[in-house]
């Protein structure tokens, strides 16, 4: 059964055999004025994200926030327990014996920062995403093996099914595919 040509497109995708070709193609697509771009690769590639014009990652900020929350919560918990809720007078030593509270403050800083790192990364990446249109391209399974894909999304103001396809084919890919919803 052939699908009607009016099917909604998520975008168009070109397949490349090497990371060098992909990087060159990504640069070309940016210079051609495309802005809604994404690439799919089996391993992280240096500068690909910058070439595609993506913003810097916000993960480090989340780590900092998590770390500050962890440190305050860790010290606060110990201070409140030892000096307010359950003060124990041991030989007249101070209730707020801060040097003894450092290890747990440190551990909780790391713990909360680590949890923010991992779950922050997942949230920023929108994971879990059980369904995504790019998986409709049969060849896409190779993106986790040895193929490199460049996708121009249909949301791009410059996107046009006919001319974008011509543009992608001009980048000498090993294939160009429609990504359907």
């Amino acid at each position, binding site marked *: 059964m052939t699908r009607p040509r009016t099917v909604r497109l998520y975008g168009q995708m070109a397949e490349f055999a090497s*990371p*060098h070709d992909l990087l060159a193609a990504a640069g070309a697509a940016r210079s051609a004025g495309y802005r809604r771009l*994404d*690439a*799919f*690769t*089996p*391993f*992280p*590639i*240096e*500068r*690909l*994200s910058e070439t*595609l014009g*993506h913003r810097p*990652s*916000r*993960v*480090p900020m989340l*780590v900092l926030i998590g770390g500050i929350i962890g440190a305050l919560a860790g010290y606060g918990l*110990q201070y409140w*327990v*030892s000096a307010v*809720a*359950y003060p*124990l007078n041991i030989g007249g030593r101070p209730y707020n*014996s801060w040097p*003894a*509270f450092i*290890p*747990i403050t*440190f*551990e*909780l800083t*790391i*713990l909360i*920062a*680590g*949890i923010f*790192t*991992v779950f*922050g*990364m*997942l949230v*920023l*990446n929108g*994971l*879990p*995403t*059980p*369904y*995504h249109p*790019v998986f409709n391209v049969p060849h*896409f*399974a*190779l*993106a*986790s*093996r040895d193929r490199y894909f460049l996708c121009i999304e249909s949301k791009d103001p410059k996107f046009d099914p006919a001319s974008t396809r011509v543009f992608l084919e001009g980048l000498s890919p090993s294939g160009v595919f429609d990504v359907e919803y």
Partner: protein
Amino acid sequence: MEQTPGTGGPRAADPGRPPLIAPGYTSATVTDKISAVVLRGTPRWWFAAFGAAFLLVMLLLGTLGHLFLKGVGIYGVNIPVGWGWDITNFVWWIGIGHAGTLISAILLLLRQEWRNSINRFAEAMTLFAVACASLYPVVHLGRPWVLYWLFPYPSTMGVWPQFRSPLVWDVFAVSTYATISLLFWFIGLIPDLATLRDRAKSRFAQIVYGMLAMGWRGSARHWHNYESAYLMLAGLATPLVVSVHSVVSFDFAVGIIPGWHSTIFPPYFVAGAIYSGFAMVLTLAIPLRAIFGLKDFITDRHLQNMAKVMLATGLIVAYGYLIEIFMAWYGDNRFDVYMSLNRMFGPYAFQFWSLIACNVVAPQALWIKRLRRSPVFLFVIAIIVNVGMWLERYVIIVTSLHRDFLPSSWGMYSGTVWDYSTFVGSIGLFLALMFLFIRFLPMISIFEMRTILPEARVEEARK
């Protein structure tokens, strides 16, 4: 982030060094070779090996059942030696875990690309070792069913944990370590789970790996956040791993017992942890690479590097032993002097000298390049170091406790059959988890292996 961990360090391209991966591999062949171990079905020996480990897990459960019925009296512990095999095993296991974090986090930050083929199973080793370790303090509590009293929670009794106690610090350190290790291991697995999802033939495997991969699609946006998170986590895990064994050493060092009360404990425990951990990584890596034909990925250079780390940390540990004895003499405290003499010439002299033979003398053979190159020899040395590090903890705990200040409270200690069965059982638990891991998950990080391939060197090709 300007640079990708794993790609393009000048070291990797150095022609004078043997390659980290045998020549001729491509992204496709690396993927196929590592994922085939998981996807091609279960080899027959696996059932035998897992079955044997599983029997030991049953032994552990039987022992713990007996322990819960009878109480800690079934172990050899009593006053004055209230910590015996249990805490020895706890420290031993948690130390083993440290190499996994060192390999995955510290070597990542130091851009040591050779870690890429060993980090995954070293992290798994960490996780399983920490699982075995955390068992011990819990079953040793006497009333393990009130384990939750260790954690601060608003109880109806109105009591709270004593936050000035190193034992409470330990609870936080070990549980943070376990959590961060699990998270680090899992996020490392996500791209490989996506590979397995895409490579699996059976519908069931596709669904299970697909759910675990959470829809990872290798998007540039994903990788960007992912790499940032991975580096951040490595940065967090690095001080964490140092802190964990330092806190474990505080359990001893904050006490006033001669032989425990020492400021050298934290660094010397951390070095010992890395030492025993690398010994365990070698103990696992050498048979694994032979059985699964992975010598192209875990090359002799990897084994040699690990041997060098072992030699270096072994020397730090040896320095620790020397300084302990020196300080006992130099400090001129009669109890410390007696403790050192008692360790060397007292009733536990055999264990002490065995530990010196295993941890200080035997590894000196690693100075010889020819021996460092022999996997069989390295395997033997690794086993000896594992034994030595266990003895070290035993000697520190038992010889310090059994004769403290007052001769009237001296005593002798030895483990019972239940101590042995708990220990052997925990080794079984570790091995059983390890066998499940190598059967169902990629034991080498596939995506990180791809980054050290020649084809991944995008920047160098451009120049």
